[in-house]
């Protein structure tokens, strides 16, 4: 199976660099790390932007060494495992995270690109509207999902995870594309309204529970489907070939060959509208 192009490694990492000063298990809310917030600000002004260290209000400068200027290319380094909400609501520019990063990466983003070179926590790209997030490693639960109480999750954009993800990837997504090169947890695409989830590893149990429309593709082993999904046909979906080739052209070295095979189409969830589809690829003999 294909691997992710490490586009970030080829970048000129000019722009603003933030380096985490210390390692700490105390959660940090850093939604100020966002190109839109950095626009027109120099290093000192960026360092003065607010953040939360636990429940204490601090500034980015208290937590990070800030160097450089320019809003459209931000690099964040150091121990970020407990740093939340990087790129929250961003609409432009690029953020590169060089290590593992905490939850809510790129939630509500509408444009630009985030590249995480390590793993990412839960809620990557929650409620995303546009742009692209690429996580080289694993990601947690609820990738591209809707927050509790919300009826719609992702409404646009692309999320690519190079490793495995947890449960409920793409839950309640309305539009957009999520690509997982590894395995997924249970309930992928739960209550999905539309959009596409492509899984190259093993699709976890009970995918598409409650889905109305949308597409879940299992390129790997056949998943355990709910009884409310019904077999329709075995066919070769041309749109999938188009999808994978476009992804390849956009700089992600995702192998398009798996889309060329035959797929078994299951429709469901019949407890809902029943117009959702799970495509299960025939495995080569």
């Amino acid at each position, binding site marked *: 199976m294909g691997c992710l192009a490490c586009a970030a490694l080829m970048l000129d990492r000019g722009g603003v660099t933030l380096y985490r000063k210390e390692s700490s298990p105390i959660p940090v809310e850093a939604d100020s790390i966002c190109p839109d917030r950095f626009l027109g600000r120099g290093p000192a002004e960026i360092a003065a932007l607010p953040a939360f260290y636990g429940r204490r209000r601090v500034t980015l400068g208290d937590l990070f060494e800030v160097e450089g200027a320019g809003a459209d290319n931000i690099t964040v380094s150091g121990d970020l495992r407990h740093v939340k909400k990087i790129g929250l609501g961003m609409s432009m520019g690029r953020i590169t995270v060089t290590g593992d990063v905490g939850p809510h990466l790129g939630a509500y983003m509408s444009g630009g690109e985030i590249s995480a070179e390590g793993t990412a926590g839960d809620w990557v790209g929650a409620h995303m509207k546009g742009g692209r997030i690429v996580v080289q490693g694993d990601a947690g639960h609820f990738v591209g999902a809707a927050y509790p109480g919300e009826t719609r999750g992702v409404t646009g954009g692309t999320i690519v995870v190079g490793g495995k993800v947890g449960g409920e990837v793409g839950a309640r997504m309305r539009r957009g594309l999520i690509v997982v090169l590894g395995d997924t947890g249970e309930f992928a695409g739960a209550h999905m309204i539309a959009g596409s989830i492509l899984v190259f590893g093993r699709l976890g149990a009970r995918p598409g529970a409650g889905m109305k429309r949308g597409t879940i593709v299992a390129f790997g082993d056949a998943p355990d489907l709910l009884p409310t999904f019904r077999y329709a046909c075995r*066919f*070769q979906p041309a*749109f999938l070939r*188009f999808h994978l080739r476009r992804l390849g052209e956009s700089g992600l070295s995702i192998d398009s060959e798996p889309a060329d095979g035959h797929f078994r189409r299951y429709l469901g969830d019949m407890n809902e509208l029943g117009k959702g589809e799970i495509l299960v690829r025939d495995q080569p003999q």
Partner: protein
Amino acid sequence: MRINGVEIEDTFAEAFEMWGARLIITAHNERWALTAAQAATGFATSIIGCGCEAGTNDLPADERTPDGRPGVAALFFTTSRQNMEAQLLQRVGQGVMTSPTSACYNGLDAGDTIKVGGKLRFFGDGFQSSKLLDGRRLWRVPVMDGEFVVEENFGVSKAVGGGNFFIMAEDLEAALAAAEAAVTAMRAVPGVIMPFPGGIVRSGSKVSSRYKGQHVSSNTPYCPTIRPLVESALPDGVEAVLEIVIDGLEEEAVGEAMRVGVGASCLPGVVRITAGNYGGSLGRYQFHLRDLVDA
């Protein structure tokens, strides 16, 4: 000026502004891609009676089809943007969607677009679905062999129609051999079509008629069988004339196709190469034969 002893007349082809579209039609194999494209571009020889001019074009070696399957390009030319939408709806709907395993994508990156798949989708009777990726929406229409995939919008742009040249030969065999050689060579030029049957037209026309209500009629000055009855344009020794008409998405492509075609048609038995024009007063584009072959 002569090439291989063939006189290149000091004249020009007069061409007109049209609207062009380029579709990429794919299928399970080359045979069915071509079948679908030929069905869609059939009966589209002349804007006069067909509503559009259309033809197929091999894909350049460096261009892959959007879904990676075998495919061909189909080019369409109309006199107005509105006509293009009507023609594509009919021709994609009846010629491509009906053809087994086919899919149809936009092949022209243009600022202006017309909705085709976005209207054909209603054939799905409520079971159609769409996929949006990077601003391109594909419609998936359920059909009996699986699903027909068609792009929502197709690019349209101003184009060039009516590039032409005439092959005057000492007999029909020589004229036909020269025209066939020209068309074969011109098919390698991307972005152009020769819309007439096999790329060649024998019934060239003039824009007048002695009959009321008839706007065009046979190009009598070039018809050998009535030479003594009209003010003939045929030099002595010319017994047959064939014409090649070229439409292209860009002026440069039409010029290149004419250059290639004129060069390839200068074969034994050909007396003169000339071109059709209206004195330069009607068309926006002029392609001077000698300038082209000198280039």
